């Protein structure tokens, strides 16, 4: 009787652990990727939006 109940408990518990873990956590992976890319490209401060275009000289002064 005891063995039977133990068996049932394991049958219920073990697949619960396994099924959660075999699937690739796509959303978590995207979150992790975003975090790492932001750090590698230093996108957090928004400074990357600025493009370093060559400064055009100011309009020639009247001469």
């Amino acid at each position, binding site marked *: *009787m*005891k063995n039977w*109940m*133990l068996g*049932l*408990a394991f049958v*219920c*518990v073990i697949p*619960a*652990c396994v099924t*959660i*873990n075999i699937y*690739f*956590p*796509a959303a*978590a*992976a*995207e*979150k*992790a*990727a*975003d*975090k*790492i*890319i*932001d*750090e*590698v*490209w*230093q*996108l957090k401060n928004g400074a*990357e939006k600025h*493009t370093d275009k060559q400064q055009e000289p100011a309009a020639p002064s009247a001469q």
Partner: protein
Amino acid sequence: MKKILLGLMLLGTLIGSQFVAAAADLEVNTPAITAIKNSMQARHTQLGPFYSSGAIGLTKDGLITVKDANAVPLAQRGALTGLVKDENADRSKLYKEIAVANGHPEWQAEIQSTFAGRWIDKAQSGWWVQDAGGWTQK
């Protein structure tokens, strides 16, 4: 007897919930991952101008490649090839380390393809990115 069973069930639920919590976030704070990240961050200051000039582009498999060597002065081409090679080595190592750090080395390919999409999404305008149809400029 019922108490034992109930206890086991409770234990099972607790263990199960820990797995759920672990699955909510991927572990990316190991020393190995941090080291790769720092190395890539330092290299990016050198790679930045090459992305902008179209000399290199982001591939659909989460790596980078020399796309237009002619956009680079001859004298710099050797250095660029080395940078691209080092960057790709770091990227491959990064994908592998994330998979290993989370106890699933078999996730490496999926992590790589997730990164591929995110690199391209976050690329600055003017950079060249590769998709199923070929190269496009953002």
